[in-house]
């Protein structure tokens, strides 16, 4: 589990989203969690799931789950499918325009199920 954005363990409320098997390696999907659109990405190489906002603050559309994921140096990123800026999947920070930042959410896999903390 990677609890990058979570505060402390007790306050975390985990929402079950889907089976991990439903995720295709190195692609994203969008989940609706407590009224929020959240993009989930599964890196096959790292065997890790990441969650950030689906809304692209630069392109102003709900599209980030449809971007390509990869690495920029040490950082794991998604590239916006609209205008190709990179967002750090762990911190939500935009590499090219750091004034834009997504919320990054904690994710855990339990018993083959994906949970996101919102």
């Amino acid at each position: 589990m990677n609890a990058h954005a979570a505060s402390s363990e007790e306050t975390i409320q985990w929402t079950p989203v889907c089976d991990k098997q439903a995720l295709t390696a190195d692609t994203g999907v969008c989940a609706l969690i407590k009224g929020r659109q959240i993009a989930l990405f599964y890196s096959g190489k790292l065997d890790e799931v990441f969650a950030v906002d689906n809304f692209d603050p630069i392109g102003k559309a709900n599209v980030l789950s449809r971007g390509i994921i990869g690495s920029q140096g040490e950082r794991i990123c998604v590239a916006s499918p609209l205008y190709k800026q990179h967002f750090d999947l762990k911190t939500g920070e935009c590499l090219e325009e750091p004034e834009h930042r997504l919320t990054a959410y904690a994710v855990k896999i339990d018993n083959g199920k994906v949970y996101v903390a919102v």
Partner: protein
Amino acid sequence: MSKQRVIVVGNGMVGHKFIDNVINSDSADKYEILTFSEEPRLAYDRVKLSSYFSGSTVDDLMLTSEEHYQSAGVVYTLNDKVVDLDHDNKTVKLASGKVERYDKLVLATGSYPFVPPIPGKDQPHCLVYRTIEDLEAITASAQESKVGVVVGGGLLGLEAANALKNLGLETHVVEFAPRLMAVQLDEGGGNLLRRKVEALDVNVHTEKNTKNITAGEKHRYRMEFADGSYLETDMILFSAGIRPQDELARNCGIDVGERGGIIIDNYCRTSIEDIYAIGECALWDSKIFGLVAPGYQMAKVALSHIDGGPEEFTGADMSTKLKLLGVDVASVGDAHARTPGAQTYTYEDGVNEVYKRLIVSEDRKKLLGAVLVGDVEAYGTLQQMCVNSMDLPGSPEQLILPQSDGSASAAMGVDALPDTAQLCSCLDVTKGDIVNAVQGGCCNMGDIKSTTGASTGCGGCAALVKSVMDKELANLGVEVNNHICEHFEYSRAELADIIRVKKIESFDELLDSHGKGLGCDICKPAVGSILASYWNDYVLEEKHMGLQDTNDIYLGNMQKDGTYSIVPRVAGGEITPDKLIVLGEVAKEFNLYTKITGGQRIDLFGAQLHELPVIWKKLVDAGFETGHAYGKSVRTVKSCVGSTWCRYGVQDSVGMAIAIENRYKGLRSPHKLKFAVSGCTRECAEAQSKDIGVIATENGWNLYVCGNGGMRPRHADLFATDLDDETLVKYIDRVLMFYIRTADRLQRTSVWLENLEGGLDYLREVVIDDKLNIAQELENEMTSNIGKYQCEWKTTIENPEKLKRFRHFINSEETDANLAYVVEREQRRPANEQERKDQIPAMEITTN
């Protein structure tokens, strides 16, 4: 010490250059500058005047601004003219009555258009071509005219003809001499230029001496010629040369030449002390210089002399290179072979319409001049050889002959140039300046331009400047890195070789063996494209899915709001009424914005993810297949209707377009590919602007390659002529596969060809002569690719697993609530931010 008062009379290009030089010099604060212009605005670029008719605004043409002059302390007066000059008391008097004192006076009064003394020349629609006001008058007159005549077939005359054409007039050029551009071109060059100009629907009349302009019968005026013939027209534009504007000097006792022009010495001094003349009004060694570069040189010399410097004006190279009506023309040095004993070499290629002539010294050691029409690539080399009096190679003809080994031309190595060689004559930049700039850290043309100013004038020297820069970069050992991204230390072409030779079938396999990290949005789609080009698997197969770019991954073109557009294939642009009705019905059912594309198909906008499979099911059932509008792949083959219906068609262009489109549909490539087929030489399908263009001839097909529209349009090159169907397809197979094998990522065929060493000739050798012995391999690769074609949408809608991805949420059936639309011209489009705010709560569009 008080400032010296310098008055510059005239604020044209050269007058402004002088002022600009003062402002930028170290001794700027020694001078107080005043300038007067009779025009209503400060200096603008007269060289680019014709661009006013192709969309440039007055602002685009301006060389400076009132703010700039104000901040530099330059005092300027517009709409006022210096009418008198008292050199004893050192004052000038203006038309407005004002009198100003000077310490130094610089006459930059320029020239005026020469209008031959023909009776009837002063009528309202008889105009000239020199100032922005003239252009405005021409535009106004053109609105009341159908036919326009330019008097004068020189450089400016042809530019003016282009302007009339752009204004939609039937255009004629009337020239007194027996050929066009008689000053710069010899007979052969002039004849070819004429053929090319006439092919552009400009009527050329040479050896015509206009005697009288009277009222016409069919048109406004009738021009009567000395040989008894006549021509009727609605407007006349005189562009028969320029005359120095020397009236002020002449009236005030300054020496002028017999045929006009203010006489100056090597320091640009006139016959009266403290008065200088520069630019087109000045006469040096009995010569007037009607180009901007010598004028700039004089501006530099005059300032140097005022400032106590040593510079001298010693004449100027009058070589020119320009594009007139789309035709490349260049003239170097003694183009007419007037030097005693001059020898010439002539190369003429009637097929490709190229004419080149070299004029060399009697001993064949030095180049005296050259004429180039249709292909001016050698201009930079030849001009430098001429100006620097460099030794010619043993066989000078090699300089203008096409090279059999494929190299572009026997370009002289830039190493041979002395450091003092002036590469950019507009801005006076030498080879040494470029070398210094590179050593100072410049490593691309943008840097070079902003640092040295080279190539920012006419741009004619760009190729030469770039080769000097490249050479110097190489000398410094600067490595030009062509790695595709941080994850692979290879270029795209190298990755393509690795994938092909090692038969690599997935991105992970390639990353493990040849890369590092996780990959990124640069290398993943590039590798995805190469894999598809060679193995042509289904792009949404699980192992390839994460590689697909924005559009490919959902097989549609993502629009700004995250919805998609849908473009079914309409091969050759041929569609039955029934299929048209299906498209209309689908668009209506899903409320899709509908537009005809440039590639003769129909684009349906605004489909949400979950709607895509439903829509495509209907389309596939009706016999449509994917148009690959989303892919870096073959898009469309545009066609005209051809011989089946058209009175002029000589081949079945629609049939050929459909055959080609079906052959190459779905072919993934480094960038998108657009084709066209025209049924006759009228070229209604615009094939010469395509990557692959096919034009019917009486005997078969002419094949054009590597053209494109878009950001930087490029005309396709004629690759082969009169091909039969089978050979045509064979050549296209080979060209495309060779491009896929060797191009860079996102490199259109046009740029690919420009960067291909050896250029078009080399491509012909590979494709036609099979120089590399790979033709069969290329064809086999194409055959294999074609054999694996599948309609990606048909495959997708038949696969329930794949369909799961086509919904907005993985855990909900809801759709994206953020979409908002407004209706415009009876169709919807995404609401802009203001409209969104105005329509809270967002209007929900329900479509099913």
